[in-house]
């Protein structure tokens, strides 16, 4: 018995399709790259600074929390870096350093780790971080004020603010093509519509996000905005404008689709996506905030466990 070979014994199945969390995180970051690179070229070094600080501090916080809670260090799975990148993309290029550091701490600690880490968070960690920053220091999120020293050769007024305060007459300066190609002011990684759409399509094709959520979110935004627009075209702007401005596209492809806080069954995904889309336009058009994506998605995160109860009948279930 002594010269027996020591074989590995484990339970079936003995194959795995090779997918893992690291690949998933890095490909999501890759998909965000067109919009990120465009943002850096538009806003220059300050944008790069905000993004670098955000990514590095998200990783540092994750590492420290891992150490303090005596868990395995999980920065290798790329999730912390992804949180940092997405949070950075949602901030204006002029954000002060302490805002970024506080935001990442809130996102990683309160958004993710107090629920037990990856997979346990009921809300999107990025949006938790951003929501707390928006409520606490709302002046920094007034993009007109934040970007007052920039002149990039196009109308530097924040499109959603113009639409909110001036109605349809305020958005004459923006053509659909300009919005799609990023000729609008806003947060670092959210202005280049085409880049976000391309990234989103890449993620959908690779199966890293669930297309049902993205599509139903966009349909929700579009249909609700269309209804408002039809009721009073002078006050409420067109659905295309809503789809291409603010956080709509990054919300549809990168925020609403966060795994742990979104449903997985078909009908719940449609309810979740459409609900977030509808709420977004409601907040934008009749709420007090200029953009509603952040709170709309957080609100729908809340109903996720409930609506995921709508599921197909299991094989042989007798009830």
């Amino acid at each position, binding site marked *: 018995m002594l010269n*027996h*070979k*020591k*074989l*590995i*014994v*484990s*339970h*079936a*199945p*003995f*194959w*795995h*399709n*090779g*997918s*893992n*969390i690291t690949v*998933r995180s890095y490909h999501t970051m890759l998909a965000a790259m067109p919009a990120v690179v465009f943002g850096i070229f538009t806003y220059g070094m300050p944008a790069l600074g905000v993004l670098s600080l955000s990514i590095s501090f998200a990783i540092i916080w994750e590492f420290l929390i891992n150490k303090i809670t005596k868990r395995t260090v999980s920065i290798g*799975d790329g999730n912390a870096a992804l949180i940092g990148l997405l949070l950075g993309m949602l901030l204006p290029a002029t954000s002060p350093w302490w805002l970024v550091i506080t935001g990442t701490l809130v996102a990683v600690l309160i958004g993710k780790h107090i629920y*037990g*880490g*990856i*997979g*346990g968070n009921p809300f999107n960690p990025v949006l938790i971080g951003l929501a707390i920053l928006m409520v606490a220091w709302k002046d920094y999120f007034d993009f007109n004020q934040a970007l007052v020293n920039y002149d990039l050769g196009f109308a530097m007024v924040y499109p959603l603010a113009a639409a909110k305060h001036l109605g349809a007459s305020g958005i004459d300066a923006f053509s659909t093509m300009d919005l799609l190609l990023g000729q609008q002011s806003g947060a670092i990684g959210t202005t280049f519509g085409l880049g976000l759409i391309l990234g989103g399509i890449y993620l*959908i*094709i*690779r*199966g*890293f996000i*669930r*297309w049902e959520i993205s599509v139903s979110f966009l349909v929700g935004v579009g249909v609700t905005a269309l209804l408002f627009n039809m009721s009073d075209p002078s006050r409420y702007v067109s659905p295309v404008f809503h789809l291409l401005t603010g956080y709509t596209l990054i919300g549809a492809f990168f925020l609403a689709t966060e*795994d*742990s806080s*979104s449903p*997985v*069954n078909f009908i719940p995904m449609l309810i979740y996506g459409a609900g977030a889309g509808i709420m977004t336009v409601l907040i934008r058009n009749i709420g007090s905030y200029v953009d509603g994506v952040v709170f709309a998605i957080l609100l729908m995160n809340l109903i996720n466990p409930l609506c*995921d109860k709508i*599921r*197909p*009948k*299991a*094989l*042989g*279930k*007798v009830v």
Partner: protein
Amino acid sequence: MIKRSFIGLTKPLLKYDAMDVKTPAPLVIQPSKKVTLFLDKAFNFKDTILFKIGDTVKTGQKLSYSEDSDAYVISTVTGTISSITPFDADYGKTYTAITIDVSENEEIDDQFSTLAKEPTIDTLKGCLAFIPGNLPIGLFSSTDASPSIETIVISGVDRDLFITTNQNTVMVDGKAIKQGVQILKQITGIDNIVIVSPDYLMQDAGITGAEVRVVDPEYPASLPHLIMRDVLDQVVPAGKSCEDMGVFFISAEAVASIGKAFSEGQIPFYKHFNLIKKDGSSILISARIGTPIHDILNAFDVTLNDKDRLIIGGPMTGIAVFSDDYPVQPDTDAIMVQDRDNIPLVSDYPCINCGECIRICPANIPINLLVRFLEAGQYEEAADQYDLYSCIECGLCSFVCVSKMPVFHYIKLAKYELGRISNAEATNA
């Protein structure tokens, strides 16, 4: 190993291996020194066992455990019994392992040839429990309490990927299956016998005299519960077995073995199975039941190193064993060797709720919720609310899990633990 495709929107396509018409006949391997047979009875020193170390046995001789037990094995070689030991298998199952040293001159026991002239249920139960293909004895030992069997389904398809045993039997041994079908009809009185096969074998399956039905060539369509649903249009309620529904599954190889046994007057003892090598190539082999695996690996120059994995069965549903002394058994459909560099390991990461398992599960189980309860050991809740017993045990959830959780392992463990609890409750009541 089949990897995730670049386009992750589509489900992975796991096709069953199809037989090539030009496939050569299975290569026959002879046991070199000894064979080991597993007798389905826990070994106990106090029992008066009807055989002992040093006894000479003939090929085909029946070795009964004791006077008051039905358990027996059929010796597949001529030789001397060299050891009788207890053997603990998976899930608390215990066997008596009988090792026989093979002698050079083979003598055939003729006890069965006289019984074979008149096929009866008793002959089948008393002599053929150990035939290649694993005869489900439950079919013939019906009591008043057990459900009545209305349909027998012969599997002309194989349970797992890479395996072609049953398909090969349908292709080559159609006549033996036909004889087996007649004998089954005659002694059980069940007329409704169905053979399921992939569509390219319909012609071959047609000559067996059983009703032919076609099964999808994509994994996991050949698992009994899915054959019930897709081919027979009967859904097995969660927690019930196919037998409870009056349908009995038997492999094509077992039916062919029954046919051969009665027509030739000799118990067959060559088991066909696939050897899946480290490079993923698969060859069909024929060896006596009881042949140790290292004999087979030696014959094909497969070297086994430390930290490799040796699997009885296919890549999805097989069982890993810890020693290459393990013998070929009546239900061994494949022996798979994995190199240590190709072994995907599981991790202790939690579920990230990506939904891959939900999309691939053929039984629509809410695995993302189920696994959270299983991890916490809340098996009863898992069974009551999250459809634990709907699982048909295909293993696809673990195959696609992004977190590499051992989902299938959790499910089997939960079922086993719940089974133990209900057994204990039944005993104490």
